[in-house]
C-alpha cells in the first residue's frame, strides 16, 4: 500500500528559503534522530509548497543515516483504501500490526480525515501505538490540526503535542533559486534575466512556478530564437492562446489592416490570427498525443486502483504496465474483470455453504481462479446433501393395489409438481407396508429433475448428523447442506420425538422449505396427531399437508409380489401363488419372508414347489389335516361374520410360533 519514496525528492534538491527554513530544519532533525526530537511532527502549508517533497526527503535522509530503519510513506487516501481492502479480505489486524511496526511513518494529506470517524479512530490508535513505542510519525496537511473540520479532539491534541510547523509561499529569491535549480536539472539554459522575469510573477505556489518553467522550456524548444526576459514576461503573463509572437516572424506575415474584415461584415467574424499559431498547435497536439498514447496505461492504472480498492490481487494487471504497446490490454482488463466476477460468484456460493471458507485468499486473487474453483467444488462436495434416495426402491417396482393407491397417487402428484401440490406429504403406515419404498421412490423421481438435490434419509440419520455437527461446531455447514436440497424426505420422523434440538432444526428447515416451495415428505408409523413427544408446532405442520395411509397389502398386491418373487422359478404352480397370496400378511416383509422360507425349503429338500409343499413348510404337517373347506387361511381360523378386523387375534393355535414371528419383526 505504500507509495515508494520518489528518489528525486531529497533534502538536497529541496530549495530552502526563509518561508520554509523552520520546517526543513525540523524535518532534518527528525530524520537524524527519529522518535526522539519532535514526535509527532506536523507540517502544514498550502498546496504545491513542498510538503510531499519534504516528507519524502525526510524518509530518504533517515534511511541514509540508518539503513536498517523501516520507513513508510503513504497518503491518507492510500491508507484508507489499503485498510478497507485489508479489512474486506479479513486482514485488518495484519495491516495494523505491520504499520505499527514501522520506525518512521510519513502520512500525507491528513486533511482528508474530515468526516471519516472510523479512520480517525484508527489513526488515533495507530498514533498512540507508534508514540508509545517510540516510533516517529510525521504528518502533512494543507491546514493546521485544529482547522481540519470535524477532527476528533484527541487527535488534535496528539498532533499538536509534538511540533506543528508551517511553510509559506517562497519569496522572490527562493523562486529564482527554485527555477534555476529546476532548469539545471532539465539541462536547459536561458538568457540572463529570463528566470528572474518568471520569478517576478505573482505565482502562489511552486507547482505554478514549474508550469511557467515548462512553458519557457517548451517555447524555447520550438522556436529558433532565444527567449528574452521581455518575451518571457509577456508570454507568461499574457492570456493563454494569444500570448507571444513567433520570434523572427516578419510583419508581412501578419494580416495587413486592409485585409481585416470590412465594415459591415458579420460581428461573428473570427479574430485575427496571432503569430505563434504553430507553436500553440504543437503544444496542443503534444498534449493530445500524450493522452492518446498513454491512455491505455491510464486505463490499466485505473483498473488496478479499482480492483485493488476492492481487495483483489492485481499482479496480472500491473504486469501489463511493463509492456510497451497497448496490444491486448483491453482484452486483458476485460478478462481480469470476468475472472473477478467468477471469483465473486464462487465466493458468494461458498459463503452460503461454508461461511468461514470465504476468507480464503484464493477468492481475492484472479491468478488463483483454478484453486478457487477447486476449493468451491470441494466445499460443494463437502456440503452435498446428507444422502440421496436409494436406487433399490424405484417407483416401477412398487406394486399398486387398493391398499396403497391413495398414497401412491399422492406421491405421483408430488412428483409432478414438487412443493406445490401436497407439501408436506406424510405417509403413514405400519412397519413393512412399503413406506420406505414409496419415500425413496418419490426421492428418485424428484432427483431426475434438472438441478434437483434430494435429501432422503432416516430420522435417525438426521439426528446423528446433527449431533456430529454440534460436536464439531459446524452448525452453519450442517444447515447449509440441508438448505441446498430442493427436497427433503425423512423416513420415520417419529424417531425425532423427544429430541428437542433435532425438532428445532427440522422446524426451521420445515418453514424454509415451505417458503421456498420445496417438497417435504415424511413417513411415520402412526398419524401425526398420535405421535407422542413430537412438538405441537411440528405436528400441526405435518397435519397441514396430506396425510396418506398405507394399509396392509391387499390380496392383489400380495399376489403380484409373490409372482415377482417367484419369477425366477419357471414352472411354479399357480396354486402356490394363490395359496401364498391367500395367507394374511400384515406387511410386505412378512409376506416375502414366507415366500423365501418356502423356496429355501424346496431347494434344501430338493422337492418341487407345490402348494402342498408350501403349506407343509409354513403350517407343518398338521395344518393339512386341520384344513377345512371354506377356510382359506393356514391354521388361522377366521370368523367371517364376527367383524373382527385383525385375524391375527383370532388364532388359537400357532403351527410354529417361532416361524410365524420371525417375519413380523421389522
Amino acid at each position, binding site marked *: 500500500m505504500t507509495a515508494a519514496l520518489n528518489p528525486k525528492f531529497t533534502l538536497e534538491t529541496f530549495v530552502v528559503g526563509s518561508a520554509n527554513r523552520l520546517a526543513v530544519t525540523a524535518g532534518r532533525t527528525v530524520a537524524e534522530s527519529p522518535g526522539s526530537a519532535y514526535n509527532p511532527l506536523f507540517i502544514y502549508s498550502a498546496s504545491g509548497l513542498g510538503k510531499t517533497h519534504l516528507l519524502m526527503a525526510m524518509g530518504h535522509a533517515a534511511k541514509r543515516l540508518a539503513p536498517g530503519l523501516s520507513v513508510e510513506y503513504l497518503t491518507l487516501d492510500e491508507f484508507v483504501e489499503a485498510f478497507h481492502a485489508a479489512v474486506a479480505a479479513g486482514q485488518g489486524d495484519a495491516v495494523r500490526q505491520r504499520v505499527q511496526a514501522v520506525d518512521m511513518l510519513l502520512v500525507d494529506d491528513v486533511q482528508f480525515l474530515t468526516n471519516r470517524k472510523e479512520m480517525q479512530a484508527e489513526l488515533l490508535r495507530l498514533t498512540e501505538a507508534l508514540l508509545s513505542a517510540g516510533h516517529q510519525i510525521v504528518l502533512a496537511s494543507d491546514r493546521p490540526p485544529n482547522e481540519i473540520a470535524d477532527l476528533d479532539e484527541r487527535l488534535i491534541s496528539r498532533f499538536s503535542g509534538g511540533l506543528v510547523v508551517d511553510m509559506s509561499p517562497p519569496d522572490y529569491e527562493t523562486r529564482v533559486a527554485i527555477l534555476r535549480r529546476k532548469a539545471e536539472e532539465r539541462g536547459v539554459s536561458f538568457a540572463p534575466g529570463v528566470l528572474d522575469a518568471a520569478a517576478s510573477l505573482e505565482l502562489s505556489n511552486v507547482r505554478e512556478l514549474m508550469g511557467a518553467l515548462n512553458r519557457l522550456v517548451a517555447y524555447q524548444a520550438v522556436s529558433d530564437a532565444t527567449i528574452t526576459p521581455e518575451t518571457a514576461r509577456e508570454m507568461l503573463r499574457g492570456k493563454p492562446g494569444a500570448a507571444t509572437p513567433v520570434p523572427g516572424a516578419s510583419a508581412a506575415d501578419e494580416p495587413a489592416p486592409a485585409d481585416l474584415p470590412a465594415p459591415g461584415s458579420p460581428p461573428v467574424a473570427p479574430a485575427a*490570427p496571432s503569430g505563434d499559431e504553430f507553436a*500553440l498547435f504543437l503544444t496542443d*497536439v*503534444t498534449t493530445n498525443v500524450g493522452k492518446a498514447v498513454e491512455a*491505455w496505461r491510464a486505463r490499466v492504472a485505473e483498473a488496478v486502483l479499482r480492483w485493488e480498492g476492492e481487495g483483489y490481487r492485481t499482479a496480472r494487471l500491473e504486469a501489463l504496465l511493463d509492456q510497451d504497446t*497497448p496490444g491486448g490490454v483491453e482484452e486483458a482488463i476485460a478478462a481480469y474483470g470476468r475472472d473477478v466476477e467468477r471469483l465473486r460468484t464462487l465466493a458468494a456460493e461458498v459463503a452460503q455453504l461454508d461461511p468461514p471458507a470465504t476468507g480464503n485468499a484464493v477468492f481475492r486473487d484472479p491468478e488463483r481462479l483454478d484453486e478457487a474453483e477447486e476449493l468451491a467444488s470441494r466445499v460443494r462436495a463437502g456440503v452435498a446433501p446428507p444422502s440421496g434416495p436409494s436406487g433399490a426402491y424405484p417407483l416401477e417396482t412398487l406394486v399398486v393395489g387398493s391398499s396403497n393407491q391413495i398414497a401412491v397417487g399422492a406421491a405421483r402428484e408430488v412428483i409432478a409438481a414438487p412443493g406445490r401440490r401436497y407439501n408436506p406429504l406424510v405417509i403413514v403406515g405400519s412397519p413393512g407396508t412399503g413406506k420406505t419404498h414409496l419415500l425413496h421412490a418419490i426421492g428418485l423421481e424428484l432427483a431426475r429433475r434438472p438441478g434437483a438435490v434430494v435429501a432422503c434419509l432416516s430420522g435417525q440419520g438426521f439426528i446423528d448428523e446433527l449431533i456430529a455437527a454440534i460436536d464439531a461446531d459446524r452448525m452453519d455447514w450442517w444447515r447449509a447442506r440441508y438448505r441446498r436440497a430442493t427436497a427433503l424426505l425423512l423416513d420415520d420422523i417419529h424417531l425425532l420425538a423427544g429430541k428437542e434440538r433435532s425438532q428445532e432444526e427440522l422446524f426451521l428447515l420445515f418453514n424454509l422449505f415451505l417458503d421456498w416451495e420445496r417438497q417435504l415428505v415424511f413417513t411415520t408409523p402412526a398419524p401425526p396427531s398420535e405421535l407422542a413427544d413430537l412438538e405441537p408446532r411440528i405436528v400441526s405442520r405435518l397435519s397441514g399437508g396430506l396425510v396418506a395411509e398405507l394399509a396392509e397389502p391387499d390380496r392383489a398386491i400380495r399376489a403380484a409380489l409373490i409372482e415377482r418373487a417367484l419369477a425366477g422359478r419357471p414352472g411354479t404352480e399357480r396354486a402356490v401363488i394363490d395359496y401364498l397370496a391367500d395367507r394374511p400378511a400384515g406387511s410386505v416383509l412378512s409376506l416375502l419372508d414366507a415366500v423365501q422360507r418356502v423356496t429355501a425349503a424346496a431347494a434344501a429338500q430338493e422337492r418341487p414347489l407345490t402348494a402342498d409343499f408350501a403349506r407343509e413348510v409354513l403350517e407343518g404337517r398338521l395344518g393339512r389335516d386341520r384344513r377345512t373347506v371354506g377356510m382359506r387361511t393356514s391354521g388361522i381360523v377366521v370368523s367371517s361374520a364376527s367383524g373382527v378386523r385383525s385375524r391375527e387375534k383370532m388364532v388359537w393355535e400357532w403351527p410354529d410360533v417361532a416361524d410365524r414371528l420371525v417375519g413380523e419383526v421389522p
Partner: protein
Amino acid sequence: MSLVNFTTREITCKIVYYGPGRSGKTRNLHYVYGRVPEARRGRMISLATQTDRTLFFDFLPIDLGSISGFVTRFQLYTVPGQVYYNATRRLVLQGADGVVFVADSQARQLDENLESLQNLQSNLLELGQDARQVPLVLQYNKQDLPRELILTPAEMDDALNFRGAPSFPADALHGAGVFETLKSISELVLRRLSAGAPA
C-alpha cells in the same frame, strides 16, 4: 488505417480537406504551410491547373518531431472540389483519419456545399467507412465577406451541421480560424486513437 504504430513508435495522421470547388481548401493548406517552421514541413505538392484550380490534390506533410516518444507526422491533403473529379476525391479520401469540410459561406453556394457534403458521405460509404465514425470538423470559410452575401455560422450550422460536429468560422485567406480548425480535427483524431488503440 495505421494511425499509431507502437512498434516503430510512429504516429501518422492523414487529414483530408474536403469541400466544394473554390471554398478555400488549398488556401487552408497554404496558410498552414506559411506558419510551419521550415525545418518541420515537407515540400508542399500542389497539382494545379493554369487557373490555379486544384487538378489532382495538394499535399502538405508536417513533421511535429518526437512527442511522448512517438515520431509524429501530419499529412494534410486537399481534394479537387470540382464535381467531375470524383474518382480522385475518393482516392485521396482513402485512409483518411479525419476530414475537414471547408464550406463556402456565401449564400449562393449553399447548394454546392450540400452537394459536396453528400458526395463526402457517399464516397466514405463506398470506401466502407461509417461516416458517423470518421472524425469531422466543419469550417465556414469566407466569413470576411460582406454580411449580405454570406450566411452566419449559426445559419451554416443549421444548413450543414446536422451531426453537431465542431464548426469554425474562418477567413482562410488571412488565416483566421485555420489553426483552430486544424487543432480541432487533430484533437478528434487523437482522441479516437486513445478510445480504441489499434496495436
